[in-house]
């Protein structure tokens, strides 16, 4: 009945390693989203969740096979479902998919990314259009403290109970994964985590014992491998999941911008003819003035995505816009 990852029966050494990495001390200043909530904030969150819930819950599905029960979410009117790789396991496998209104259809597993636990599943061609939700493509804009809500079928599909809602905040953002305090359990796997606009920002993946230790696959692994997964490809190499790489180092300059210190060989930056001494003012129209912000914006985007830089070449006066296609981080 349960398809989910549990830590209890795994060797203890794994717990230590993972927790040590994951809960390292904060290095940066707090983002503006991670402030304490006021009563008014709580009321606003309630209002927003309730406003988008009926739309969001229609896109939630339960996924069943002979051996397990899990969740998923429809993200396209043609019936494309996002779920977790440990739910589908195998390309081409057929699953019983239960829709929000209790109807049952057959779903077919498409490609999956074992390295990040991302997977896709296809519903049959719809009579009109499947109810669906949008995904949030601005993965780099997620910040700790963002309010979010989880839907799923914990314990498996229950007709009388229906979907189960949890409301919470993002705790930590990694390039491929999110941690939240929306409490999950077995059966939630593959279900959606939403922002308060009702856009999918994560897919439930695994839990640890603690109530705040609920992990979701971010949208980056899906976006990075969208077409490949739709073509039934299986992605095994976790290095592909390390986020976007541009291949340059920066330093803050005196004029609220960044200056490029070095450009790596055979990097996207080199291919875009960026050079040491060039100044970067904006990324996708957003000003950047701290090297750490710049590297985060890049790292949280999927490889393959194009970012637009506003650059002042060394010795020039005028800025110009430059498109750079991010690549996977090299193996070393």
């Amino acid at each position, binding site marked *: 009945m349960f398809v989910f990852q549990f830590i209890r029966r795994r060797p203890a050494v794994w717990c230590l390693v993972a927790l040590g990495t994951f809960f390292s001390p904060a290095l940066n200043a707090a983002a503006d989203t991670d*402030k304490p909530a006021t009563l008014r904030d709580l009321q606003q969150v309630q209002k927003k969740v309730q406003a988008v819930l009926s739309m969001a819950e229609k896109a939630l599905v339960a996924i069943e096979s002979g051996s397990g029960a899990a969740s998923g979410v429809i993200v396209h009117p043609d019936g494309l479902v996002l779920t977790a790789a440990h739910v589908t396991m195998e390309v081409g496998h057929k699953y019983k998919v239960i829709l929000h209104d209790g109807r049952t259809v057959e779903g077919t597993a498409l490609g999956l990314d074992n390295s990040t636990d991302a997977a896709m599943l296809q519903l049959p061609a719809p009579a009109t259009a499947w109810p669906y939700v949008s995904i949030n493509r601005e993965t780099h804009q997620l910040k700790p403290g963002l309010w979010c809500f989880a839907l799923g079928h914990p314990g498996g599909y229950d007709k009388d109970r229906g979907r189960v809602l949890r409301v919470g905040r993002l705790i930590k953002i990694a390039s491929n994964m999110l941690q939240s305090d929306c409490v999950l*359990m077995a059966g939630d796997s593959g279900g959606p985590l939403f922002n308060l606009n009702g856009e999918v920002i994560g897919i439930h993946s695994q839990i640890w014992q603690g109530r705040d230790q609920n992990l979701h696959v971010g949208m980056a692994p899906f976006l990075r491998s969208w077409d490949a997964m739709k073509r039934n490809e299986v992605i095994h190499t976790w290095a592909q999941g390390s986020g976007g790489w541009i291949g340059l180092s920066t330093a803050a300059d005196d004029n609220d911008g960044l200056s490029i210190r070095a450009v790596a060989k055979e990097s996207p930056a080199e291919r875009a003819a960026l050079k040491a001494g060039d100044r970067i003012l904006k990324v996708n129209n957003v000003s950047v003035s701290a090297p750490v912000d710049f590297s985060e914006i890049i790292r949280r985007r999927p490889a393959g995505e194009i970012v637009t830089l506003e650059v002042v070449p060394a010795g020039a006066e005028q800025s110009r816009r430059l498109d750079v296609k991010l690549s996977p981080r090299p193996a070393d």
Partner: protein
Amino acid sequence: MMTKPFSQPAASACRYFSVLAAMGTLYFQAALPSFSHADDRVLPADNRTNGESTLDNLAQVMEKMRQSQVALGKSRDATLAATVLSEDGYIIAKASEAQQFKPWKIFLQDGSDIKVRIVRNDHELDLLLLKVERQGMQAIEWGQSIAVQAGQWLCSLTGSSREIRLGVLSARTRDIPDSGVVLGVLMGADEAEDGVLIEEVAEDSPAQIAGLQANDLVVSVDGKKVTSNRMLNQMVNARRAGDVVKLNYLREGSPGECEVRLASRSRVMMNWAGEDFANGGTSVRTDNFPEIIQHEIPLIPADMGSAVYNIEGQVVGLNIARVNRVTTFALPISVFREPIEKWIKEDREKKSRQ
């Protein structure tokens, strides 16, 4: 199904046990490294949904809530939540959970304790109505039903009413059918003539808590000999969640004895392999309720019997079962108001005649 009622659900429980183990290995090795590229910012614990700074917003509501919550138990350090219903000392608690806190006294917020009289132990709603001889108590406001809908914030007291917790109404209001009660064991082939062989003991189950182990041979229940799986099932099924049965068994030939507090079958089956991560355990009775509202406030079994409020401070129900990591059931006011008012009225009439 009739001849071996235990074996079927237990077998299905074992099936997902092995599925989990297989998936665990695969997934674990693959997923962990993704955190090596993690952003280092972490939402401070105080600012999380159930962190201190968030809960500070509810300080006023909490003060009000505390005035109507008392504790039921034999000593102050082991108590169950109980809720004051009237100024003259009628108090309600969760009946099946209260059995393990006997003998009962009520501990008040001012530090004093007071003896109780049992007015009614109601199996249908799993409620225990008690009376203390005390006037001027602060009762909850339960005169009218307060509408709730999914996504609405709710809050309850926890930790002997020293703390408050927050969560939302999370699923449809509905009835929860009866699943029967179990020990939490998978019985072996029905071959032993002198008893019933235990093949497997479920994690966190009544049997495990009582110390039963695989390969124990159960020879009697409450002093009556058992000689078949069916017989053991019938004897257990005649009881209710929260009841205690005395088992005599043979372990490697040596006799042993233990008391097992029976639990709802659905609760044991859902958590057969102990993967529930409920953080604080689950109630012994988690089903057979005429109507519940479902919320996700992180509570523990000893918090059941407390009132659940909206964040405006209105009572919406009474917590009745901690079910799993993401689920608590509460009885809405509309379900318990009429019967409780009737029981109180009858008790008052009876007392005034005496």
